[in-house]
């Protein structure tokens, strides 16, 4: 078990390293004038050749790429000093550089935006499971009935509609057209400032994300449950004289949970890495919205940092899924 985790951990670190390298190289070689956006920003669009050259030099683009990558990685662990324009500023660890747009350390701003994304992700993902699994289990137990068929086909249609359109329409109707009182004021208000506002600002996002996600979890749970309930060990459990509830939940759901949890772990990781559509549509200032704004403003350090952040979150999520999987399935754990 321990050796397995260590092995997965090493593989995860390798992937993070590869991603960081790829992202760094992409942002090194990709733009033909990488310092141009910063130069434009700092000089109010009066960036001439001499100024551009100075910014390029200060940002280290004239140094060898590998040594700059080393500086970048070192900055993440111990911090570094950065020269922006004429001033040299400290960039404490973990240093992802300075935002071109706002000239503040990227990590500092990221920290303020993480709670918004995490709130959306945790709320939405909880609804996935809270509704998806029970509905799926209920459908599996009634499979073939009219109710089951109606549920399966309506969920198939609903999940065939692109999520962002579903979310956009819901938002437009509930907040712009009907202006439903408690739901309309979408946005992120820190929990510590005003829990009620925090809740009402996120409620609609949670519901929309939750409903849409739960259609898929219903499908997974139903499929996994039908498969589990057709297993021989379910017949054994019945033959032992166990109550139907024990048979379905202790024996059936326990087995069906393994694939569901695996998919959920990854989905949750994706949500934590940035709920871009949700944040954009419901105007929630999280990581996803931030990276979108950064793209429009060509704020390269922010895009780079969010890409790295997402990669790390996803690798960690995958790692956790592998570990959880091996905990849930003794056949994996002990082999």
């Amino acid at each position, binding site marked *: 078990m321990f050796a397995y985790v260590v092995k997965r951990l090493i*593989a995860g670190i390798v*992937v993070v390293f590869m991603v960081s390298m790829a992202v760094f190289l992409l942002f090194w070689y*990709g*733009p033909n*004038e*990488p310092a141009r*956006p910063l130069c434009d920003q700092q000089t109010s669009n009066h960036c001439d050749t001499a100024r551009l050259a100075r910014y390029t030099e200060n940002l280290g683009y004239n140094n060898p790429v590998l040594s700059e990558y080393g500086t970048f990685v070192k900055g993440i662990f111990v911090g570094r000093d950065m020269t922006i324009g004429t001033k040299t500023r400290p960039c404490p660890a973990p240093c992802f550089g300075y935002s071109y747009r706002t000239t503040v350390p990227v990590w500092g701003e990221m920290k303020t935006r993480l709670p918004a994304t995490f709130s959306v992700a945790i709320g939405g993902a909880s609804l*996935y499971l809270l509704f998806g699994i029970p509905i799926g289990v209920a459908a599996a137990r009634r*499979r073939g009935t009219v109710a089951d068929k109606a549920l*399966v086909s309506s969920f*198939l*249609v609903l999940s*065939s*509609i*692109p*999520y*962002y*359109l579903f979310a*956009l*329409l819901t938002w*437009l109707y509930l907040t*712009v*057209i009907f202006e439903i009182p408690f739901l309309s004021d979408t946005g992120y208000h820190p929990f510590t400032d005003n829990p009620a506002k925090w809740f009402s600002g996120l409620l609609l996002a949670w519901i929309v*994300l939750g409903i849409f996600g739960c259609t*898929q979890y219903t499908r*997974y749970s139903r*499929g*996994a449950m*039908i498969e589990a309930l*057709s297993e021989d060990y379910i017949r054994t459990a019945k033959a032992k004289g166990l109550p139907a509830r024990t048979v379905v939940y202790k024996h059936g759901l326990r087995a069906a949970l393994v*694939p569901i949890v*695996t*998919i959920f*772990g*990854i*989905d949750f*990781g*994706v949500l934590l*890495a940035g709920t*871009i*559509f*949700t944040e*954009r549509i419901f105007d929630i200032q999280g990581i*996803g919205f931030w990276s*979108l704004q950064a*793209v*429009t403003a*060509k*704020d*390269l350090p922010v*895009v*780079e940092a*969010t*890409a790295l952040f*997402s*990669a790390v979150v*996803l*690798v960690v999520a*995958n790692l956790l*899924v592998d570990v959880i999987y091996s905990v849930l399935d003794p056949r994996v754990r002990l082999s």
Partner: protein
Amino acid sequence: MSAQTAGPETLGHLSEEPPPVDPNSKQAKTITGKSPLRIAFGRLARDKIAVVCAAVVLFFVLVAVFAGAICSIFNVDTETVLATTRVDFLNNGLPLKGPPNHGFDPAHPFGVAPNTGNDNLAFWVYGCRTSLMIASIATLFASVLGVSLGLLAGFLGGPVDKIISFFTDFFLTVPFLLAALTIAPIVSQRFATSPHYARIQLIDLIVVLSVFGWMGIARLIRGEVLSLREREFIQAARVLGMPTRRILVKELLPNLVAPIVVSISLMLPAFVAAEAGLAFLGIGVTSGISWGQTINTASNFFEVYPLFLWEPLIGIVALVLALNLLGDAIRDALDPKTRR
């Protein structure tokens, strides 16, 4: 690193394997003397939903192919010479004629866009073309990439399989939306001033979609090949000394038609949705015509001009829904065990 994402934030399934097989299946009656594909086609033709969906898809394909002709029939085009002749800037830039406030305008059957005065019908028709073009080219590239890598991994095995499988898992961990987001500013920084920027954006999109869309099909094919290559007819071909390339193309490929068709049926709607989604976020097509882009603009005018939003929205929903349901029907037809 083996599972994959399915949540809404990933824009649906870019790279998906068919869902878990539902054991609650009806037993298909055995019909002898027909190839599996023909049987599947027969089933499909009898499935009413599939036929309707196919008709809808066909409609959109025709619109996309004959976009130019449709525009000239209605005497509209995507160029707007003078916006002020069509919209009233004193009234939030809303159109002077036609919807939302002035009934129907025969010169612009779908109305015109606020502020820009662009003709909605022309933009709708060309948006359809963009959508289907990007989706189908990306599907083509992704399937070719996926099928070849899957074939190689499955057939050659050993270190080749290990490397390909590693990259499959690796790409599966990176949500394509993030990749597109990361690459968009670089492309725009580098090429924004280029006269071919619109074309470069298209290529960029197709590359991103293909590079992050091949994994599902590769895995599926690899698995299929692994089981096929132990079968007698492949063994026989090997014993006879048939060259590897010939075995792959002549013996294996025909047996892989079904999984390939299934993968394609999953990829197309995902790519259509993805293209529009990226354009909606402003990281896809920004200097061309796209439904997603129109939706992004139109959501600001929804209160006063809902039709402007509904037109592209219905276009995407109808196309994606029809493609998805058709794909579902194709999967059912090819493998009756997955029947709900």
